[in-house]
Structures are given as C-alpha cells and as structure tokens.
C-alpha cells in the first residue's frame, strides 16, 4: 500500500500537483486625515468653519468592486448585499479589508492619529464602510466631553450676510447603523506600503452637498445671541443625523 501511494504521489507531482492557496494579504497602517476639512457653504448660504469634528465608529471595512459592470457600479455597496447564502459567489462589493475595533475619529485635533493596522487582501479597492456607535468613557472621554453618549460632535462658526453664529451639534445615530460606500480608489498589490488616511469631507466636491444642508442657523437662534446648540430631538439634528450617515462625506486616500 505504501508503495502504491508513493507511486501515486509521484504521478501527482508529475501533473503539477499544488496545494490550496489563500488570497494574498498585506497589512496597511490607517490614520485620520484632516486635509479635506475645508470650509464650505451649505444650501442655505451659510459659510461654515469647523473647529471640532469627531465621530465614534467601529470596524472599518474596505471593499472591492470585483467584476461588476459599470452599469451596476454606481450602486452604493449597501445596496449590494453580501451573498451569505452560498459560498463562492463573487458579484462585487465584497469586503476584503478590515480594521476592527472602536475608534473616535477626530478630524481637527486628531490629524495624523494612527488607528491601527488594517488587514487587506490584494485587489482593486473602491469603497469604505464603517459602523456608527455611541461614544463611551472607555474611549478615554471625560465626563464633560460633549461627545460622550453621542455618535458625533461638531462645533464651529456659521457666517452669512455679516452675521456670525457659533454652534455646537451633538448627533445620535443608532449603534450598528452602517455608513457604506465611501470613495476609496486604490489598487493594492503584495508590495503595497500605502498609508490609508480616512478623510472627512464636509462638502461633497462632486455634487456640492454639505453636511449642514438644510440647517438654517438663524432659525435656530430665536434669542439672537448668535449661539446655537443642536441636540437630539431638534429638527436640525435630524438633518445632521441623515447627512452624517451619507457616504459622500467620507473617503480614503493613500498618503
């Protein structure tokens, strides 16, 4: 029997027998990038300058488009589900890179903050996903931190027609809600040493959509003291709650 199996092995080697091979993986560092934190106007003409922009997120995922035809490629990847039902299916929108964990992304004070090392399969990437969560003391926040107990916190100044309003905004988003499909165009091969920088894009450069679209700061300041605090329950909060979830306000670049 041993001889029989030995001969069999020889035959197999002669036929080019090869073991299974995993997809190639690389480790890439991920950091917070503040380069795109520009001042922009919203749809009501308010020019906004941000002094704070922080977001509590979990589990960054990087996706490939695969071989999806461009006719389908416009689809946001949250529409393109993952084929849990059956193995082997590849239709695009697959998660092939990830950095798991809980993070507070601080796009003003935290520029250059390293989030960790993402594990990525080699391939051509087209998207970023992450989950929203509620910031907690375990994030290193003090009891007075305005982000504590919320998902996002913004502060800044809004100007229009010579008027200047100082504002803060606390935004709540249900834990587990996903932002899916932020732009991330990079081909990653085995030798890739890119530094992936997560960007916040308050004004979408393509369609001009602002994070603060729909927010009229004058209407939020009935007492005229030029100080506005947007909190959960406000109508303006609901505007922000929707735009913060939009993929157009985030991106990944190679630094």
């Amino acid at each position, binding site marked *: 029997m041993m001889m029989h199996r030995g001969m069999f092995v020889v035959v*197999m080697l002669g036929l080019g027998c090869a073991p299974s*091979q995993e*997809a190639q993986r690389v480790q890439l560092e991920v950091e917070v990038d503040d380069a795109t934190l520009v001042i922009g106007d919203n749809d009501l003409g308010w020019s906004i300058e941000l002094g704070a922009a922080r977001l509590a997120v979990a*589990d960054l995922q990087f996706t490939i488009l695969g071989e999806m*035809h461009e*006719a*389908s490629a416009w689809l946001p990847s949250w529409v393109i*589900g993952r084929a*849990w039902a059956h193995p*082997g299916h590849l239709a695009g929108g697959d998660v092939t890179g990830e950095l798991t964990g809980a993070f507070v992304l601080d796009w003003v004070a935290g520029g250059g903050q390293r989030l960790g090392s993402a594990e990525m399969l080699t391939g051509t990437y087209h998207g970023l996903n992450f989950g929203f969560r509620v910031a907690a003391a375990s994030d290193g926040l003090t009891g007075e931190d305005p982000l504590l107990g919320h998902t996002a916190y913004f502060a800044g100044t809004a100007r229009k027609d010579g008027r200047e309003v100082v504002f803060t905004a606390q935004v709540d988003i249900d834990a587990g809600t996903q932002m899916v499909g932020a732009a991330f165009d990079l081909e990653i091969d085995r030798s890739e040493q890119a530094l992936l920088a997560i960007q916040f894009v308050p004004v979408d450069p393509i369609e001009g959509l602002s994070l603060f679209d729909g927010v009229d700061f004058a209407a939020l300041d009935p007492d005229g003291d030029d100080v506005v605090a947007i909190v959960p329950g406000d109508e303006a909060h609901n505007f922000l709650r929707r735009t913060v979830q939009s993929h157009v306000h985030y991106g990944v670049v190679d630094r």
Partner: protein
Amino acid sequence: MLASQRVVDATEIAASPRRRSADDLLRLVPGVLLSQHGAEGKGQQIFLRGFDAAHGSDVEVLVAGIPINELSNIHGQGYLDLNFMIPEVVRSISVAKGPFQINQGNFANAGTIRFELGVDPTARGTRVGYELGSTIRHRGVVVHAPRRLGPQTFTAFEAMRDEGFAPGRQAQRVSSISQVRLIDSPVFGSLDLLGSGYYARFGSPGALAATDVASARVPFDGVYQSDGGGSSIRALTSLRHQMALGGGKLEQRLYGQFRHFDMLENFTGYLQDPVNGDRRAQAHRFFSAGYQIEYQRPLVESLVLTVGGSWQGDSISQVDQRVDAGHGVVQRNWDLGIGQHQAGARVGLRWKPTRWLHLEGGARADLFAYDVVDYLHDEARSRKVLGRASPRVLAAFRLGSRVSLFAAYGRGLRAPEARSILAGVTTPSDVVLDRYKGGTPRIVPSDAIELGGRYTGTKYLSAGLAAFATWIERELVFDHVSAVNLELNQTRRLGVELDVSLRPVPWLLLRQDLTLAQARFVGSGAAVPGAPPLLSASSLTLSHPNGLRAGVRLQVVGARPLPHGARSATYALLDVGVGYRKGPLQLDLQVDNVTNAQWKEGEYHFASWWNRDEPRSTLPSLHLIAGPPLAIRLATTLYFM
C-alpha cells in the same frame, strides 16, 4: 455530430466505478467536474467548459427527453437533482457540448446532457441486487424488464441508506421508475408511458474554515453544526408518442412533475447574526406540466427540415428564511408564489449536398413569462415577459473515410429566475429606482464557437480534438440577499478538449479525456472564479464475454481559481470497480478513492465566523468540504431470466 460529442452506452455505465447514484454518472461525461457540498441526494455543483454552473445554471439536462433543470429553484437557478434515476436503467448518456444544436434550450450555455432510460436486450429479465458498503451503506435494487418486450419497457425500484463517511453525510432514498410501451402500431406509432416516484433525505456538512482544520479545531471531515440537510421528493410522469407522418417523423411528449425540496444550511456561522446564527431554511414546491413536439421531414433526399416547439408551465411556492438553533424563524427573506411559463419554437435544416459535406442551420426562439407574488411585501405582484432568438449553425467535412472536421457557432441562453423580476419591488424605499440601470432582469445570451476534428480509425482507435470559445457580453447575476440584478463584465472562455479511445479487443476500452479551459474577464484579465483549468480522466472499461467486467478511472483536477485571488488544490482520484457474473449470479466490488487520498471536494473563499470567542472578521478565507476517503462497496445481483 461534433468532435466533442460523446455517447456513453450501458456497457460502459455498468462497468464504470463510483456509480453510487445516477447523479454520479455525470462523472462519465468528459470535461464535467462534480462537487458535492451536501450529501448524496443533494444536487451537485457542476463545472463544464470553463463554467461554474453551480447547481445547473449553465448545463441543460434532460431525462427521457424531459427537462430536469428547475427554473427559479430557491436553492439555485437551474437546480439539478438526478438522484431519482436508477443507474441500472440508464441506457445511454449523450453529451452535446456548447449550444450548437437547435434542440438545446435554456441553460445550455456549456452544453446539454441527455439521459435515455431503458434496458438493453442483453440485460433484460428480472434482477435483484443488494449492495453493502463500508460507510454502512445498504442499497437494494430490483429491475424487471420482460425479455419479450422492447428496451423501452421496464420497471425498477431502489432503496438506499448510507450513514456516510463522516458526520453530515448520511443519506437515504427510495425511488421507482417504470416505463411501458402502451401502443406499438404501424399506423398510430408508439406510445410510451413513464412514471417515477422518489423520496430522499440527506445531510449537509457545510464548509469548514481551512484555518480551523489546520489548527485541529475541527476535523478535516467534521462539521460545525449537525443539523444541516434536506429532503427531496419528485413525482414524474410522461407520455411519449412517435409516429411516421407524411414522409417524416413526428415525436411529441406530454409530461407532468411535482417537486418538493427542503434544505437547511449554514455556511457562515454567526457572521450575519451573532446570536441566532446564519442557518438558512429553504422550501421549494412546484407543479409542472409540459408539452414538446418535433417533426422531421426530408424535403428532398439531401435536405431535412426540422420544426419543433415546447411549452412548460410551473406553479411554484418558495420560502427562504433565517432560522435559529431550534429552527424557529428569525427572519423571513423570501415568500413567493410564482407562475412561470417557458415556450420555445425552433426550425432548422439539415443538408447533405455531397458525401463529404454536412450542414445544419437554424434558429430557436424562447419566451419566458413570469408572474410573481411577494407575500412579504403586501403581496406585491410583478409580471415580466422576456424573449430571445438564438441562431445555431454547424458544418462537418469528411476528409476521406476516417477523418472529419467540424465547425459550429451557436448562441446559448440562460433565463433569469423569477425572484429577479422583483428587484424593483423589494429594493429599499429611499432608493431612486431609475438609478437601477443594472437592475432589469433579462435573458443572458452566450456566443460560442467550436472547431475540431475526429479520427475514427479502424475499430481500434478513435480520437477527437476540439477547440472551443464562449463569450458572454454582460452576464447578469441576481444577488439573493439584496434582491438586485448585477451586471458583470464581459467574460470569455477558451479551451481545448482531447479524447482518445482505444479498443484493442472488443471487450476492452481505454479512454483518455483531457480538457484545458481558461475562463477570464476580458477587461481585467482576472480569472472567472470556480472553473477548473485542467481536467483529465483516464479510464479502462472491461466487459468480457466470460462474465468479467471492470472499470478503472483516474481523474485529475487542476487548481481552480477562487474569488479574490485564492486558489483551490489540485487533486487526483483513482476509482476501481470489478465484477464477475456466473450464470444468474453477479458479484461486484467497487472501491472509491483507492489511494485513500485526503482531498477537498469543495473549496470556497468567503467569510465566516464560527468561534464567537474570537474577533469577528469579515475577510474572506479558504473553506473546504472533505471528499470521501477510501470506500468499498460489495454488491451481489441475482438474475432471473
């Protein structure tokens, strides 16, 4: 006839190794790779000519002329379950690769496989067989084929129970098939009645993460959960009428089917639902009725006209839901009522202007109509009618008496599944529907060519060589989770098939089949996941007049490209069967996987999360399904003539 066409006869079938079920007989088709990711009783994953046809989406199969692919099956488009057939009454398997003939219908992108049922004169009589296998397998079969009647008439019954080689591989089934020639008249022609009943239960081991196997967290042939499996029921009947009419030949068939299919699987563990797990329970039921007609008539001596048509109507109910460990419903994914019709018409000419030239040309038109009610969305109703014309031509040139050259072009088609027409109904309400450019269901056409030659020498040697190519412009796949139709980039499949048959003496046949296929996305050059680039089968079939018969088959499967750049392992399997008949008694010994190779029958690349003590990862990784180790079956058959 093309260079790649092949007919496997009853003698070769009877002597072939690894013939546990009729499903296994597909292994005798050159260039076909089967992968079982359930247990015996579940339809197998089929690969042919660079296609990963999943459960049958690109391979058309007919049994006694009846289409077996299940359009809109909940488990997979074109789902094929051939386990209802009893191998002892399979009279021949004929293979037409590529979509080059006008009688090839839906799903024939990679080819058409036809099973003819019957019992040849040499095997007629009554026989009773019992098989005992090393996997605690018991199989009994009774075939009654009266010698005074023709090969069409027989009745057969089979019962099988197999504990399987490892957890999740248990299977049991009972099946019966009967066919009788009711009328055989020179005036009215012949009328054959076929009836079949089948019931099976089977396990489903699921796939194991390769890292878990490597770390010995789970055995190579183990399971994560032991409740996977399903059941399958089929009742089938048909009436076939053939007669000479107006100088031609008329054939018509009326058939009806009932199917019941239940399945419980979990491939991803707790990735989707960390609490209840990702078990999916599927139920599929359908009633089906169909009619086929074909008329062939010579117009002049060298020119034959063929016209034909077919219709099949299905009434389907299907449910897909995520269930917990107690199989309580966690989430209902699909609950549909479907009415669907498939109709086709074809016309063709066969012209033989000279002794050395044979031409065939024609076209078929196929029509698919769907009426789908979505019970999970306020009984929303969608209707769709789709049609497509498919031209087919082929030419054969005889170069002398022994060599023929062939050239063929054909357009194949794959109809969408009924669920796909709901894409615009079940998408999220806050998505603008006019953005769904890729969301329209349609028939996916493929364009294929084949060039080849065949040498049919003396009675000792036959050899064929065929080069094939298939292009699909924009393949449409329906994503079952998001309910969106996705268009994929253009693909092309190129390949070469070689077969050599040597029959040094009438009772010994040696065959070598080799298929090389390369399936790529045209733009990126990336490999199309799934299809094996190399398939080789070397076989010996011995059927001696003194009662000795034997079959030896060595199959080598090249590394298959998997998604994201992963690759499956190469493997080789050696199967042997030997039998001897003395008078009324026949003994058969079959040994599968003679070398007891540890091989992976299925390999996949996807994300799963089974160990909840470890961090959840959504990254795809290799998963495997163990193939059967060495297995021995001893069968005894008693013939009553």
